[in-house]
């Protein structure tokens, strides 16, 4: 079972390609995945969500500002400033949820799993 799951992890870049509290966008098959490295008390957490902003229909979420809002870790879309929860994909201002993807670091490589 582990073996099957492992097949779906796609390596996308080196850990060094991620800068603290910033995002990048990775192309995985025909999907665009926004990956963020968020610092908390000196350690880094990675998050991956879809790069597509449903409000502007532009692929821009990796270029938003990250932070926290009312207890959620979020990214703000650079276009109309909607906030998306990086854990659940839920939009904080509207009843919209965007896809989130598992992400991990394996041997210095960042990997995401896109179904």
């Amino acid at each position, binding site marked *: 079972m582990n073996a099957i799951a492992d097949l779906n992890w796609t390596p*996308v870049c080196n850990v060094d390609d991620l800068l603290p*509290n*910033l995002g990048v*966008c990775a192309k995985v098959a025909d999907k*665009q995945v926004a990956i963020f490295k968020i610092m908390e008390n000196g350690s880094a957490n990675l998050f991956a969500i879809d790069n597509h902003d449903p409000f502007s229909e532009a692929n821009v979420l990796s270029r*938003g500002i990250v*932070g*926290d809002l009312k207890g959620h870790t979020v990214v703000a879309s*650079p276009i109309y400033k909607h*906030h998306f929860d990086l854990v659940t994909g839920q939009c904080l201002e509207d009843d919209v949820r965007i896809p989130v993807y598992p992400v991990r670091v394996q041997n210095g490589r960042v990997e995401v799993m896109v179904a």
Partner: protein
Amino acid sequence: MSKQKLVVIGNGMVGQKFLAQFAEQEQSIAFDITTFCEEPRPAYDRVYLSAYFSGKTAEDLSLVPAGFFETHNINLRLNDKAVSIDRANKLVETANGEKVPYDKLVLATGSYPFVPPIPGKDRPECLVYRTIEDLEAIKATAAKSRVGVVVGGGLLGLEAAKALKDLGLETHVVEFAPRLMAVQVDEGGGKLLRSMIESMGVKVHTGKNTQRIEDGSSSKLKMCFADGSELETDLILFSAGIRPRDELAKQSGLTMGERGGITVNNFCQTSDPDIFAIGECALWNGRIFGLVAPGYQMAQVAVDTITGKLASEFKGADMSTKLKLMGVDVASIGDAHGTTLGAQSYSFVDEINKVYKKIVVSSDNKYLLGAVLVGEAENYGTLLQMMLNNIELPEFPDMLILPQRDGAAAPAMGVDKLPDAAQICSCNNVSKGQICCAVQDGITELSALKAATKAGTSCGGCTALVGQVMNAELAKLGIEVKKDVCEHFPYSRQEIYHLVRVNNIRSFDELIAKFGKGKGCDICKPMTASILASCWNDFILKTEHAGLQDTNDYFMANMQKDGTYSVVPRVPGGEITPDGLIAIGAVAKKFNLYTKITGGQRIDLFGAQVHELPLIWKELIDAGFESGHAYGKSLRTVKSCVGSTWCRYGMLDSVGMAIRLENRYKGLRAPHKIKFAVSGCTRECAEAQGKDVGVIATEKGWNLYVCGNGGMKPRHADLIASDLDDATLIQYIDRFLMFYIKTADRLQRTSVWLDNLEGGLKYLADVIINDSLGIGSELEQQMEHVVNTYQDEWRTTVESPDKLKRFRHFVNSDAKDSNVVFVEERGQIRPATQEEKRIQLVAV
């Protein structure tokens, strides 16, 4: 039921106030209203008439909101003079013989300037100062004159003298009395006032009785005085007092005062109960009130009486005044001459700093009766309220006028001591009670309070007091005005700015660790980035600042709706060489960018994708261009008109100055974007009065305007200083911008900032010009630092390979974003609509 007919003769300041207040009453629908206006335009602000010379137009001065007469169905008869009243048949007759019936008639005919019966007074160069037409005549005559004389050294005469001086004339004031402003100011004050007026370059002649005006020899006219002396001049402006326009009352047999004026009772009724008189034509208790505030009170009383409310009575008005000449503060309150029985006085004279202050107190030393302030009138509002409300004096009343040394705070008169009825804004008759009500209804900001109550919206002299009343009421209600920027910082932007400077904070992480909580957000991060840049001017793409920037700042371009970017190279002052144009055109063509001339006199290139930005900039930099900061909360453009180099009317080189200013302040980070413009003359082709900083050339230098705004809520900029040389202009702008950066809220343009600044324009002018806070040189140094450490962000980026890594859409592929699709329109690209994208994708 047929409607009653209400006729108002005169559409001046008071007539218009009457109409505005009448129209607000429910009962107004039961009236057909007609108003006669002898002048060619409806009511305008006579109090600010002089501003016409410094560039305000008749429209700027208008007191009539757009569509006012139409909305309220008022029949406005412009250029139409009422010539007689037939009281028996209740008819008003007009100049062309038409007869207009009335049930109620209001006379608001104002007054006319008195011209003493001196032989020669009717010569074409003898003028008066009352209407816009008068000012046009003065301007035209001044253009052919070298010397000008104002006859009359009162409030208006001095204002007129300043106007003549500004028109470039050698200016004299001739006064019959032994001192200037004899009505308001005592001998000591008069002496000091004279020396201040003289130091402004106006020659003062007191105790002069003009007997004849004859042909001059070196100038057009010669004035001959009773003492045998003479004065040659090209223009004479009479400002020797006003006389009520009571000719209609006289003709129709209404009761009048011995020396003129239409007699009215406490309800502003004349001897005919259906006829009212208000404003400067009305005589109440043997007195004429030559100020606008009492006229406004009369208007309210007449409205109440005609609508049957009988709610208010006119009981006289306070004649305290504050002169609004730039550079000379003069105020007179109540019994300035100490004529009340038993009155005593304290006075303070400082001949070095030119300050004279006197207070007149009651015989028991308990109450303030009057005051004279010359050279410094800071506590006019406080003293006035003390007198009007009979507030008991402090133990040592001289504290009120003695200078405060060693940082001791001036004795404040807690606003809580004022009764609710205390009039805080006299221009608009707003009481303390009304302000408190507005605050109770939820207003917490000065600008909103001004909009809701109109307090502080005319002369502005009361704004500090209005602010104090608001704050006291907020405190009383237990409302803490939260200015916290967001959930991560319990501070306002101004406080955070201060924390950063004082604690020498250099990064967001340090700031949030010390003064905030959590991880930050898209509000506090860009704000901190901006403050760090304003203070230290670090390269904005330094790794530790990178995550703080809005995408526009991060990629140094403006994100568009489809995720592509626009590129705006700086074109200082809008001046560009043919080669520059060709270079921009070549880059646009090579990268297939949509091009458009912006509203800021430069060129915007749209449709660039992230990976193309450095390539585009490499070429633009090679062609000599720099970042235009169209993406930043920073200086955008300095718009210019062509100016004296080419234009036949240009006074100075506006393009040169615009370029100089743009290069000085480019890259400066601020709470919001900042726009400038420089016009070469008062025709104002660069629209400088719509900008945060506007500069207009005059014959004698630069006029500086501040805090204008276009956009959603346009605001005309305010003139803050005139006739500046280049160095002073730049000094003032340095101070202005740094003071704004220090004190404004996040995303607050200068216009909104000023509207919320306690003390308003006067306070700002004091800080910038008189350095009242003593921070002038500090502000200049801080600006100097920013100017000296400027770097073109795009050049730095293009030259540092590690910074270039971020400019790609995918971290793991060189592919482009397939969602970015263009179609062609009018010969250029534009983003495809979602519909078009679907079709194209199918087609592929």
